[in-house]
């Protein structure tokens, strides 16, 4: 009997956007298709220590345990593996995923509790390992499985050739594989502003990899061979999960690394979904150059239900775009945003505000782009706080290793504040980190409560005639949306005037909105108006007050 566990390890903190680990789900479904039942464990948002989680879920009862590993979770994975091997030395521990692929040799050299690393796609190598494990229980891991790096009985390490890519994605089973999870999964939804309706949504992956070579992208580690599914297969997956989950999914988030590589294929999938159910809407992510090159397809995609495109803009600085190997100019980014807006399509912004070599000039370019693209009204405000993450196996990580003259550790994700080279940029970053800690939660709360209230009132206008309080709240919402961007403006101005200045960060707070109130006063004013317009006592004022810096004890200077 081969007892197989597939584990998404804890990263030590809670991820509020938790979703199923789709790579492991594909492997679990593939094993089942070939006669192997596995048990899935998703510890992705568990704050518990790996040993405690392993014990609680009895991982030592499994004889073959596969872990999906990201940079953030390698250390936790190795703690799981050590616990497991102490209690069940005969268990076979296998690591896979993008990070394990990137550092497979280091893992095998330095981590004796690991028996094998599966590189790139996991389906076939895991099936081969499972078959061997069933045929020869208690024996060492099979030494010659393509796509693996294995520990030999002699103690040596063998790097087998890469496994061939899975070319026929339509032949794969749907990723319908359950996970034991501490918290379950929040329902995936999409608010369709065009219809004023919250829709149940499904994430579907319709392709693998991406033919481009953005220098920061972890997808590079699994190879650049782009493979695609057919429209019929995508429709069949939608029908499958509608039946299996008993939910009338009406929006598809295509989770492909790059959905829009071949526009005719994108249109074929969109048309098939539209023919299956014309009420289905969808969204996808792609690159700016692809969107501009194939702009002629956009009207048809919109006709088939396209609502927004997640655009890998990343930066508006020509120097940063070169470092990131985006292959586009800043003007292309703005053109792509305007193209989508002209078609009445929304933009979901992928942005990297700061990389280690970012200068004030680069940040000014980002500021101009955000202004010109209308992103001062955009929420969430994450784009202001994002920074480059140096994932293992990416060219940009190697660039910074060369720049500092030493490699990073195998599981090291160097914090951006240890990498930023320009002192003025470091100060901008510190100020944004301070603002996020001090005010962003209160801004988010007020916006979420106010926008839900205002949307409801607009949808049922006959029951809720416009009042002076509502009009005032509408403008407070606009001002709250602007606040983080206006703070960014003030910080840039200050850093330009005083590159080595030490003004307390709260001296740079904006005063947005009618009457130019202090930011805390604006948020409290909006919260009071929400409470006044709401029949039930929602306590927004009290909750907002509790999130403000005075209540949280955040210092004005960021200390």
């Amino acid at each position: 009997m081969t007892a197989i566990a597939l584990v998404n390890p804890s990263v030590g903190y809670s991820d509020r956007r938790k979703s199923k680990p789709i790579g492991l789900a594909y492997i679990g479904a593939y094993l089942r298709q070939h006669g192997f039942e596995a048990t899935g464990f998703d510890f992705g948002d568990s704050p518990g220590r790996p040993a405690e989680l392993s014990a609680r879920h009895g991982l030592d009862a499994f004889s073959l345990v596969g872990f999906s590993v990201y940079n953030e979770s390698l250390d936790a994975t190795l703690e799981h593996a050590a616990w497991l091997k102490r209690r069940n030395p005969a268990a076979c521990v296998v690591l896979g995923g993008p990070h394990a692929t990137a550092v497979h040799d280091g893992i095998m050299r330095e981590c004796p509790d690991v028996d094998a690393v599966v590189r790139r796609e996991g389906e076939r190598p895991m099936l081969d390992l499972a078959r061997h494990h069933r045929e020869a229980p208690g024996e060492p891991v099979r030494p010659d499985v393509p796509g693996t790096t294995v520990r030999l009985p002699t103690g040596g390490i063998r790097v087998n050739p890469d496994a061939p890519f899975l070319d026929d994605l339509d032949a794969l089973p749907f990723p319908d594989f359950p996970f034991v999870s501490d918290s379950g999964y929040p329902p995936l939804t999409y608010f369709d502003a065009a219809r004023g309706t919250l829709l149940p949504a499904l994430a579907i992956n319709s392709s693998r990899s991406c033919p481009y070579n953005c220098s920061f992208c972890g997808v590079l580690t699994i190879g650049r061979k782009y493979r695609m599914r057919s429209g019929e297969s995508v429709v069949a997956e939608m029908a499958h999960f509608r039946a299996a989950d008993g939910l009338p999914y009406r929006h598809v988030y295509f989770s492909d690394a790059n959905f829009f590589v071949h526009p005719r294929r994108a249109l074929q999938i969109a048309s098939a979904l539209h023919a299956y159910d014309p009420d289905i809407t969808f969204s996808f992510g792609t690159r700016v150059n692809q969107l501009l090159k194939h702009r002629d397809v956009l009207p048809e995609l919109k006709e088939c239900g396209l609502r927004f495109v997640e655009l890998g803009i990343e930066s508006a600085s020509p120097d940063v775009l070169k470092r990131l190997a985006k292959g586009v100019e800043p003007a292309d980014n703005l053109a792509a945003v305007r193209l989508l807006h002209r078609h009445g399509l929304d933009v979901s912004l992928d942005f990297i505000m700061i990389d280690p070599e970012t200068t004030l000039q680069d940040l000014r370019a980002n500021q101009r782009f955000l202004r010109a693209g209308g992103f001062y009204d955009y929420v969430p405000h994450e784009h202001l706080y994002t920074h480059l993450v140096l994932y293992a196996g990416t060219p940009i990580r190697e660039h910074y290793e060369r720049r500092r003259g030493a490699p990073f550790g195998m599981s090291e994700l160097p914090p951006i504040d240890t990498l930023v080279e320009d002192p003025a940029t470091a100060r901008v970053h510190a100020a944004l980190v301070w603002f996020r800690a001090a005010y962003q939660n209160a801004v988010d709360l007020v916006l979420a409560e106010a926008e839900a209230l205002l949307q409801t009132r607009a949808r049922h206008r006959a029951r809720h005639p416009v009042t002076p309080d509502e009009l005032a709240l509408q403008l407070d919402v606009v001002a709250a949306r602007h606040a983080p961007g206006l703070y960014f403006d003030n910080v840039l101005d200050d850093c330009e005037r005083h590159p080595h200045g030490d003004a307390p960060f709260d001296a740079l707070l904006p005063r947005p909105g009618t009457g130019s109130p202090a930011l805390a006063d604006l948020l409290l004013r909006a919260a009071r108006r929400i409470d006044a317009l709401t029949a039930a006592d929602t306590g927004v004022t009290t909750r907002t007050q509790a999130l403000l810096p005075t209540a949280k004890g955040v210092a004005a200077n960021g200390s």
Partner: protein
Amino acid sequence: MILRSERPVLDECGRIYIAGAGPAGECLRLNPAATRLWRTAVGRLDQAGLARLAPPSRSFLQSLLERGVLAWRDARP
């Protein structure tokens, strides 16, 4: 008599926002061209000035007049 806004307005981040001016009484954000027009017209333009505007600008302001977002008011502050 000059054009005045009948609704609360915010001029911030390069755009004009007009509370309650949307079709369902929601906040309306003007695009850059309409923002420029608003700034030059509202609080300044009289009826003769409106008549001299290019047709697209004139019809935009007239639509706001018809919806009660703008009104002719005394020129004195």
